[in-house]
C-alpha cells in the first residue's frame, strides 16, 4: 500500500491506532509513571505515522513501529521535564524496559513506575491481572474525573480515537473536547490518581463506573439518529470492542459479561431501527428479519454464561429484557409476563421512574391493564417524568384501552407535543383521532 490518497492514508493510520494504541499507551504509562507524557508520546507517534507511512509504506509490524517511536518521544519529553528526581527514575525505567523488551512484562517497573509501589501494592490483584489496559481503563473511569471526562479519556487513550472524532461524536467543538482532555490529564497528575487496578474491596464499585462509561458511549451512538450516522455506528462498535476487552481481562465479573450481552442484543437491531429519513422506527414496527441473528445468538450465550455465576446485577437483568425482545419472532410473540418480572427485578437492583414505567407497560401488555395503570397513576407526581414523552404515551395507551377516553386524549396530546420522533408522533395522532372519532 505504498501509494494512495491522503485521505486513504489518514483512514489507515487512524484504523491502526484505534487497534494498537490502547495497549501501547497503557504499557508506556506504567513504564514512565506519567499519564500525560505517555499519552502525548503516542500522539506524537500518530503524527509521525501520518507523515512517514504514506512515504515509506505501511510498516511490517505497525505496533512495534508505534511503540518504538512513542518510546523515543517519551524519552525526549522526559529529558526536558522539570521534575528532576521523577525524571531520573522514569528514564531508568524506560531504559530497563528497552533492554528487557519481550521477555518480562514487569521488567520496566521501579518504585516510581508503579505509584502504589511505595505502599506495598496489592500483589495478588496485580499478578492476577497483569494487563496494563485494565489499569488504564480503571484510571480513565476514576470517579474523581467528571463523567464527560471519563468518556472522553476512555475513547482517546483506550479507543485510540482522535480528538476531532470524539468532539464530532458528542457534538461539541473540538477546542472544548481538547480542553476537557487536557483538564482530565492534569487532574490525574495533580491530584495523583493512581495508575492501578483497584483493590478487591473497592473493585465492584469501580467496575460499575467503567461499565457505566462504556454504556454511555454505546448509548451516545445508539440513541442518536440521522446526521452523523457513521460516527454514531463507530461509537457502538467501539463500546462493544472495549466491553469485550473488559470481559477478557475480568472473566469472573458477570456484570461485565452482562453489559457486553446487553450491547450486542441492542446492536443486533441496528439495521431495523432507522427509517430512510433517519427517524427511529418503534420496536413493534421494526422488520425483525433485519435483526442480526448472530449478534442475538452471541448476546444470549454471554448472558447465559453471566447468569451461571449466580451474581445477578442490573446489566444482566437489562440484557435479559433485551434478549426477551430479540427472541420474539413477532411483537405478538413477545413474552411480556417475563419482561414484567424482569423489570420488577431491575426495580430492586437499580430503581428509577423509567424502570417503573417500563414495568407498568410490560404488565399491561401481558394483560394486567389495572396493575399497569395503578403504577402509572403512582408515577404521575414524579417531576422527572413530566417532560418524558414515553410516560405520557404509555399512559395514554393504557387509559384508552381502559375506556377512559377523555383522559387518554389529554395524555396523547401531551405526548405528541413532547416527542421529537415523527414516526411516533404519527402513531400517537392516529390513536388520538380514533378516540375523538369514537367520542362523537
Amino acid at each position: 500500500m505504498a501509494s494512495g490518497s491522503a485521505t486513504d492514508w489518514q483512514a489507515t493510520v487512524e484504523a491502526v491506532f484505534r487497534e494498537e494504541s490502547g495497549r501501547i499507551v497503557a504499557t508506556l504509562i506504567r513504564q514512565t509513571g506519567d499519564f500525560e507524557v505517555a499519552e502525548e508520546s503516542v500522539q506524537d507517534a500518530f503524527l509521525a505515522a501520518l507523515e512517514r507511512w504514506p512515504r515509506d509504506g505501511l510498516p511490517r509490524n505497525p505496533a512495534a513501529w508505534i511503540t518504538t517511536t512513542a518510546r523515543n518521544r517519551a524519552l525526549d519529553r522526559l529529558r526536558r521535564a522539570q521534575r528532576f528526581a521523577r525524571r531520573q527514575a522514569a528514564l531508568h525505567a524506560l531504559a530497563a524496559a528497552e533492554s528487557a523488551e519481550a521477555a518480562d512484562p514487569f521488567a520496566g517497573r521501579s518504585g516510581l513506575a508503579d505509584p502504589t509501589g511505595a505502599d506495598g501494592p496489592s500483589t495478588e490483584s496485580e499478578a492476577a491481572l497483569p494487563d496494563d489496559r485494565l489499569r488504564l481503563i480503571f484510571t480513565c473511569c476514576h470517579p474523581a474525573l467528571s463523567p464527560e471526562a471519563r468518556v472522553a479519556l476512555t475513547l482517546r487513550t483506550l479507543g485510540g480515537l482522535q480528538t476531532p472524532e470524539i468532539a464530532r461524536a458528542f457534538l461539541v467543538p473540538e477546542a472544548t473536547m481538547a480542553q476537557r482532555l487536557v483538564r482530565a490529564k492534569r487532574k490525574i497528575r495533580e491530584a495523583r490518581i493512581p495508575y492501578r487496578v483497584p483493590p478487591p474491596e473497592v473493585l465492584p464499585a469501580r467496575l460499575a463506573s467503567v461499565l457505566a462509561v462504556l454504556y454511555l458511549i454505546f448509548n451516545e451512538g445508539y440513541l442518536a439518529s440521522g446526521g452523523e450516522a457513521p460516527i454514531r455506528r463507530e461509537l457502538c462498535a467501539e463500546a462493544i470492542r472495549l466491553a469485550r476487552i473488559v470481559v477478557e481481562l475480568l472473566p469472573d465479573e458477570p456484570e461485565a459479561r452482562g453489559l457486553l450481552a446487553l450491547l450486542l442484543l441492542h446492536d443486533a437491531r441496528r439495521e431495523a431501527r432507522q427509517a430512510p429519513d433517519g427517524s427511529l422506527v418503534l420496536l413493534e414496527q421494526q422488520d425483525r428479519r433485519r435483526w442480526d441473528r448472530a449478534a442475538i445468538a452471541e448476546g444470549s450465550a454471554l448472558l447465559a454464561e453471566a447468569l451461571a455465576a449466580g451474581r445477578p446485577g442490573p446489566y444482566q437483568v437489562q440484557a435479559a429484557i433485551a434478549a426477551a425482545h430479540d427472541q420474539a419472532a413477532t411483537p405478538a410473540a413477545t413474552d411480556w409476563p417475563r419482561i414484567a418480572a424482569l423489570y420488577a427485578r431491575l426495580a430492586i437492583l437499580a430503581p428509577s421512574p423509567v424502570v417503573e414505567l417500563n414495568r407498568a407497560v410490560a404488565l399491561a401488555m401481558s394483560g394486567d391493564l389495572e396493575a399497569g395503570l395503578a403504577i402509572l397513576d403512582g408515577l404521575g407526581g414524579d417531576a422527572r417524568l413530566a417532560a418524558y414523552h414515553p410516560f405520557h404515551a404509555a399512559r395514554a395507551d393504557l387509559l384508552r384501552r381502559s375506556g377512559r377516553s377523555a383522559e387518554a386524549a389529554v395524555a396523547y396530546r401531551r405526548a405528541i407535543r413532547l416527542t421529537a420522533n415523527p414516526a411516533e408522533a404519527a402513531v400517537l395522532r392516529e390513536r388520538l383521532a380514533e378516540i375523538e372519532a369514537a367520542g362523537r
Partner: protein
Amino acid sequence: MRYLFMIFGAEVDPATVPDAEAAAEMAAYNAFTQEVQARGLMLGGEALEPSSTATTVRVRDGHALVTDGPFAETKEQILGYYLLECADLDEALEMAARVPGAASGGIEVRPIWELPAEAAPAAPGATAV
C-alpha cells in the same frame, strides 16, 4: 503527597444540639484523628469556630477592605480541616469518607501544590515528591 481535607456542612446552633449527640460527634472525630495518627498520615487538623466569627480581608488598590463574615455567604460553610499525607488520591478519598462530617455535609479533598523537587537525583526506585 499532602492533601487538605475541608469539612463542609450546615452550621447548627450548638445550643440546639442534645448533649449526647454533641458528645458522640466529638468521640467520632477523636477516633478519626487517632486513626490517622496511627497510620502516620496526620499533619494537622482543627475544628473552626462558626462562620459568624469570621472576618474577611480584601486588599484592592492598596486599601484593605474588611468585612464581617465568611468569604462566601453559602448555606454550607467550612467547619474544620485535616491536613494528611496520603500515598495517592485513592487513599485520600478512602480517608475522606471516614471523616465524620462526610455523612451529613461533604469533604473537599484538595492536593497541596508541591514545589518541584530540584534536589539531588534520587536513587531509582524512590518515590518522587
